[in-house]
């Protein structure tokens, strides 16, 4: 069942994106430069790193604890730093409807401060989504990341976990390290962008904040994906990007129990192609899972692309049951067999 909904445009919801630690800060810095319609905050214990970044608010946390020198890969220091600066953090998130936390887990600030922010956000009844990346196996900091995930599951409404180890699914062998990391950053950015586009833009057929609230209140792991077709011929690839997101850990589109689908276009999207997008995405989501869709109004939210497709899915899958086991298990294959091999090769 796919239903279309209308939105009350007069209500403005406050969405804030907070990057925590080095990796989270870098991504939020890019989001800020991209001009997404949201307030951005970067928290870091490293005052030097934060001075090179841009966001609506930059907060060096734990000035007494770390003296601005970073948490040194120690999550306990990251935690202390966040607790020390909690009043400043709360001041920035107090009037927030939706908070999106972005962090790279495995090091001190991301893994230590994120659970503190998540905990206080829950206490303040703020709808909170976490978008986190996992360290490379070779970094040997998996346990730190797992502990942080385990703790945050109690506080977050939903979370998306992106595994750096699956990067080979998207990067070609001759990609530079910088390019490979940019791919991960992009996946995170797409998750954030999906949420913001869905609730902020006016559309012919609308999705609103309450749709998102209902969806992510299901809890557990989220499925977020974006696909872009610059021209009509790219539509297949765009759909494939939405239905096969190899970096997401512990979930596939088949796990989705309910979803919001939002389509933006330069105004030339043909009805037949619109149907094709709905049909093909519907094909991958279990039959009984409701999907609500939104279609952007021409000229609003500007895109030069033939179609931009955003999907947010709730799975209800607990991280403790799925992700932790998979990550903790070094036997996890570095290949995502759920993706058709032809599609995987196209992504590279």
């Amino acid at each position, binding site marked *: 069942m796919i239903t279309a909904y209308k939105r009350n445009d007069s209500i403005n919801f406050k969405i804030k994106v907070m990057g925590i630690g080095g990796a989270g800060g870098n991504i939020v810095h890019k989001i800020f430069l991209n001009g997404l319609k949201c307030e951005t905050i970067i928290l870091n214990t490293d005052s030097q790193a934060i001075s090179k970044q841009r966001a609506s608010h930059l907060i060096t946390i734990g000035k007494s604890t770390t003296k601005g020198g970073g948490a040194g890969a120690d999550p306990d220091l990251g935690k202390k730093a966040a607790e020390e600066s909690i009043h400043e953090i709360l001041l920035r998130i107090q009037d927030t409807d939706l908070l999106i936390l972005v962090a790279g887990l495995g090091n001190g600030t991301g893994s230590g401060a994120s659970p503190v922010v998540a905990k206080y956000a829950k206490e303040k009844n703020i709808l909170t989504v976490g978008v986190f990346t996992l360290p490379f196996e070779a970094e040997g900091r998996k346990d730190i990341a797992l502990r942080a995930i385990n703790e945050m599951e109690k506080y977050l409404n939903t979370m998306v976990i992106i595994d750096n180890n699956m990067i080979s699914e998207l990067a070609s062998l001759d990609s530079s390290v910088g390019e490979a990391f940019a791919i991960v950053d992009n996946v995170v950015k797409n998750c954030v962008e999906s949420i913001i586009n869905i609730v902020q833009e006016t559309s012919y057929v609308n999705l609103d904040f309450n749709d998102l609230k209902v969806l992510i209140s299901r809890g557990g792991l989220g499925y977020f994906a974006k696909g872009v077709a610059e021209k009509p011929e790219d539509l297949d690839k765009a759909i494939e990007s939405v*239905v096969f997101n190899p970096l997401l850990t512990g979930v596939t589109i088949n796990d989705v129990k309910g979803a919001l689908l939002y389509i933006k276009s330069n105004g030339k999207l043909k009805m037949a192609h619109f149907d094709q997008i709905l*049909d*093909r995405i519907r*094909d*991958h989501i279990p039959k009984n899972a409701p999907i609500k869709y939104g279609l952007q109004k021409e000229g609003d939210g500007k895109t030069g692309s033939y179609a931009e497709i955003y999907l947010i899915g709730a799975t209800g899958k607990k991280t403790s049951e799925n992700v932790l086991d998979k990550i903790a*298990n070094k*036997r996890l*294959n570095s*290949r995502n*067999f*759920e993706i*058709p*091999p*032809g*599609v*995987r090769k196209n992504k590279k």
Partner: protein
Amino acid sequence: MGETFVVVDFCSSKIVTFIAEANNELKIKFWGNEPVDSDTIRQGQVYNLENIAIKVRKTLNEFAKKSKFEPSRVFISFADPEAEFITSIGMAACGTPENPAEISEKHIEQAIKNSYAIKIEEGRSIAQAIPVRFNVDSKTDIKNPKGMLGVRLEVESALITAKKSSLLNYKKALEKTGLIADGFIYQIVAQLYELTSKEEKENGVLLIDIGRDLTNYGVIAENKLLFAETLPVGGMNINKDLKHYFGVTLDKAEELKIFYGRDEYDDEQELDFLNSIFPPGRVSRIKGELVVQYITERLTDIFEYIKEKLIQNDLKDKITFVKITGGTSEIEYIDRIAENVFNITTEIYRPNEELEELLAQNNIPPSNRLSSSLGALLFAYKKLTSNQNSSEVKIVGNVKGFLRRIFGS
């Protein structure tokens, strides 16, 4: 009368139960093949204890109508993408340099037992142990050291570890039928030993079993088990690929896979086939050459992954032959796809004459869909009848009172 034993093989699409007798020869007394859905067993893992019990009980009850039986041993045959293959060395002191002693069963058991004493991750346990090589003092690579004189016996064991909870769930599912399991058999290990020839084991063979949800593969060379692994991919992934590309249901995708998995068909047969499964208007989206392309892409992907793993583990040069089995080996050109990837002679598994005869006698179809079950049956039989040491880790030894447990009498 020989020892009656039961083998329950947990496949991704079915549960096969054999009730057999181990005497001078293997006698299959009864067998059952019960299909299961993915809500019952998924990727080899137990998802519904009660459903499994119903399926196994059905076979047991049918047999019990004909004959009373009390199995002395019960084996669980399993595949698990989280199973891990590791090797370990165990030692046993047999005598002194002045007084070398004759190596007995007890020494061998002790050395094997010591090889289990290895630190494994929390939450995991050893499901199966296979002694792959014995050394007695300076003599290495001994197949059976029993009776030799020596001071120090060393055994290199191949250990299959798995999550404790997964193993206990198999066991618990059987307990609901009254069967108390004795030990586990990792499907691909049994198949490697039982479905490959002596010559293949000596020269190096890679056996690949592609089932519905899982692909099991392993290597034996110079008669030593060198590697075994289960991948979370199987024939169902071909169906999912076809579903994605053609927008068809998984059932129709299965029919497409079967039809275009054939080596030969003519235009008339193709048209009849397409008309039989698709309403008018849908047929035009399906092109035979594309179906074959997607099947080939998926299988190539699986084989390339295996090849990479063999290279990583320095095993690629140790194999001279590839054998493919499992339900997906019904794709008639699968051997050619594999041969293209591995560049080694590849063959689809066919039972040998002896096994064919056994299957015919018991009305068991000679289908590769049953190869893991047959492998497990033969492996269990050999373990019960050979003088070799038990290679399965005993989890519970007592199977007394079986009839009372299942029939309450």
